[in-house]
């Protein structure tokens, strides 16, 4: 494991977080572009596994980045990935919240409120597309994804329930050779 890769990961993850809009989920396409397409730190299968495990583990969704870091450089990589995603934007949040009174009536508020939301929609669907390409390779996968998408679209639910239901169905399907 070399220091340069850790530094590169810290830079690219921090940069991605700083320019992101709409939270962690919308960063997924960029993290995939960095980790799989550009630097080949992992392949699509690893990325799909990291995505799945990060959704099952308790805690913030940033755990996907932690797992990419783990694949790059074990424990050190996990810490670097987590900290570089979290710390710069946490610092920004502190600064912003302390200045909030002064910033609230600037035109930035209106601009952000108007221009960000539709872009976030596109980003979220991009995340869906990128993770689908990495992790779905069977009719069964398509059916599960479509079923969960429809269910979560219509019902407010803790994401863990549909995931566990799907895991149960997946194991059954595997046992019967349907996967």
């Amino acid at each position, binding site marked *: 494991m070399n220091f340069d890769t850790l530094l590169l990961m810290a830079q690219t993850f921090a940069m991605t977080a700083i320019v992101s809009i709409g939270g962690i989920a919308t960063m997924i396409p960029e993290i995939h572009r960095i980790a799989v397409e550009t630097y080949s730190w992992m392949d699509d299968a690893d990325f799909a596994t990291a995505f799945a495990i990060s959704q099952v583990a308790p*805690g913030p969704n940033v755990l996907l980045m932690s797992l990419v870091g783990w694949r790059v450089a074990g424990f050190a990589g996990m810490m670097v990935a987590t900290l570089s995603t979290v710390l710069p934007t*946490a610092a920004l949040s502190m600064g912003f919240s302390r200045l909030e009174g002064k910033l609230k009536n600037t035109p930035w508020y209106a601009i952000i409120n108007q221009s*960000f939301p539709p872009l976030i929609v596109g980003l979220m669907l991009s995340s869906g597309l990128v993770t689908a390409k990495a992790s779905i390779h069977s009719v069964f996968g398509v059916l599960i994804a479509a079923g969960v998408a429809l269910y979560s679209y219509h019902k407010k639910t803790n994401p863990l329930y549909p995931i566990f239901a799907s895991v149960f169905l*997946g194991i059954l399907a595997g046992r019967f050779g349907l996967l």
Partner: protein
Amino acid sequence: MPTEPQHPTVSLWDLFTGFFLVGLFGFGGIAASLYHVSVEKRKWLSSDEYAQTLAIGQILPGASLINMSTIIADRFHGLLGVVLALLGLFTFPLIILTALITAYDHFSHLPDVQSATTAAAAAAVGLTFGIGLKLAKGIVRSKTTLAFAVLSFLSIGLFRLPMLQSIVGLVTVSIMFSVWQSKK
């Protein structure tokens, strides 16, 4: 904030343990557990304050709920509070994550484990699309919003352009467009 309601006294230890619980109960993301601990259990903020702080966390770049946790901790104890809150928030999840990935690497050859992971990933994909569609329903209500949602999907999802350039470009176009609209 206009009229600051009386806040309870929150010690550094309270912050650490509170955020430790947020991480511990954060199955499926910390949205529900952060609300439960900070509003219902520890009464650090009212639900109105929660909504206001969440709105700030969402317009800031990065992880919305971590931004929000940072702001809450900063209000009570400044930088030291933030450090302890984030330590508390990440300790348990990172331990579990390490255990899960180690177990996965050890057992990934078993057919059941492969089936389970494949299905969990597919379900997570479905959840992502579900959120995207839910957001679209609330946001995409005009030709303009539809156009910008499609442009961001095409550039980042389909053509895989870098996020920085895409977002900066699209926000610029969006600002120019709204200026042009308001002048018409």
